[in-house]
């Protein structure tokens, strides 16, 4: 559903939004796979916004750093997303950048904190981090 560049950008965004620390980051937890699943099912209506935003992110990286978004260092990628969250765009955006980032953050949270049965957090890593167990 995404081309290689778009998917690489998505994975980089996911790891900015849920960075690895003592506990796994978003991609390692499978959050990118969760988002693909959402966009193919209940969240299919969001797919065009993702395509537009991922393309715009790539343009922003090219304009600002002359490289792919996925090649930015974590600190550069995070700084770029923070600037975009504040509405400081340089490339042309077909969607509202702050609104898309807020939505993507919510999808990342679903993919990290909701239940593994439905495709979120591989091996329940987020629940281990929080100390939550379903216990049934």
């Amino acid at each position, binding site marked *: 559903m995404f081309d290689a560049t778009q998917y690489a950008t998505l994975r980089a965004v996911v790891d900015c939004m*849920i960075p690895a620390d003592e506990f796994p980051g978003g991609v390692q937890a499978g959050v990118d796979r969760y988002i693909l699943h959402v966009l193919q099912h209940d969240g299919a209506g969001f797919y065009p916004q993702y395509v537009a935003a991922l393309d715009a992110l790539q343009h922003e990286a090219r304009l600002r750093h002359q490289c792919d978004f996925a090649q930015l260092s974590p600190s550069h990628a995070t700084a770029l997303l923070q600037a975009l969250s504040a509405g400081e765009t340089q490339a042309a955006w077909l969607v509202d950048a702050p609104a898309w980032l807020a939505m993507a953050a919510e999808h990342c949270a679903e993919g990290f*904190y909701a239940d593994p049965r439905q495709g979120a957090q591989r091996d329940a890593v987020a629940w281990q*981090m929080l100390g939550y167990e379903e216990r049934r």
Partner: protein
Amino acid sequence: MKYDAIIVGAGAGGGVAAAVLAESGAKVLLLERGAHYTFANEVTDHLRNHRLAQYGQNTGPGPGNPRVWVDLQGQSHVVQPHHGGYHNNAVAVGGGTPVYGGQAWRFLPTDFRMASHYGVPAGSGLADWPISYADLEPYYERIEREVGVAGDSQPSAQIWPRSSDYPMPPHPKTARGHLLADAAERLGWHTFTPPLLINSTPYLQRAACTGCAVCVGFACHVDAKNGTHNTMIPRAVATGNCTLLTEVHVLRIDMDGSRRASGVTYVDAHGMQHTAQADLVVVAAGAIESARLLMNSATGAHTNGLGNHSDQLGRNLQGHVYPRVIGLTPDPIYDGQGPGVSICSTRFNHDNPGIIGGGMLADEFITLPIIFWKRFLPPDVPRWGSDAKAFMRHAYPRFVDITGPIQDIPNPESRVTLDHQVRDRFGLPVARLSGGLHPETLRTAAFMFERAREWVEAAGVTRWWGTPPRDGLSASQHQAGTCRMGDDPATSVTTRDGNVHGIANLYLADGSLHVTNGGFNPVLTIMANSCRISTGIVQRGR
């Protein structure tokens, strides 16, 4: 065949009515739009349940049942069941009861006489119930015993006159509950463990709660959650007198002349249309759908719907708004113990200076991590990045919260009408929901928010946050009030017996009858009132 009674809706109210009528020997047809819903057929999904319906729900209604919600700016929206504006309650055998949290509150004596106690604020529909707490008490007692409530009998008896103890002891307090109990004691507030329709011990041949961490919004994995789905409805069916049909949709109540109902017309699960006849029709489809069904059953003699000669049908739709205050304890306090809600105070339900009514305060059910993220994060914490992740890790094991239902001051302009532009899958006009809160409800909510803040602060938190409720329609799972009882047909839809004014054999038996909805979760009152109404039907010889 002709039935003695047809009951529309096998929820909290309809399920109780089915048992009372069938056990009296009446031949009952119980019609339910939803399906049987148990843990065995539940797909546990933290994003699709009755606590968080992000993309859907774990029960009905299914596709083809939209509603129209009118926002405070007057804009109409076509909404689906999992959208907040739909004000859904679970559609299943048992209604909301297979998936609820099961807080088992009696309303207080003053809750039945709000207008007499406080006066009637301008623009409100505040009124007294035509019955008193004493009229309902025997039925509260019966429901607590026959459906099954675990509660703290001694402190409860100091608040509600009660004829017997709860049949089960209260659930154990969580670590959070103990902390909040100590905090309340420092404030001089009386607290106790909230009564729950969940087994704390084995009861009625079913197991005790295991204290798991997936409770409110879901079916119980050991069937310890007591609703009509596993008590009253199976009892009704076991008599041999009650035929339960599921996944059937009642299109209208049929009339025989202008003063008697003859039965109902419904569509079965295969799409076939049927007419069923009965001496008595009891509507218990929930406050929104009951009102809609009466409206969609309009005839030449009842042009605006059955029971609507005084333009009262559908008005005073109410539920509860909740203030919520969350705080963080210095050290982790999360113990993973469900059902979770384990401390409450009724100190502020009434007689607050300058306030009409009030509400019960309690802590929250055990909270799914994704719900904490979506609803409980403070506004100043980022939603992504390393700080967001670190905050979740720090806050989830440390949070305490206080919330509770605010007694809604009824607003006649909060209402159900029909939307003739939007139709359901059978071509019938859907429910159109409009209105907002009476200003007094918002004032009460602001007052109760401050009490919640005091309680959380007294628990020694390092920080707290929260916001008082904003204006907007309240209905949802606590929906009530659209077919209120009363002695005067000019200001009510039914008699005190639940009988629709002017239609001798048409009854209501759900939350729609509530004149006011208390500062408590209403399900025990819905069950008790249905028990009272159906017992009255039996005693009068149907």
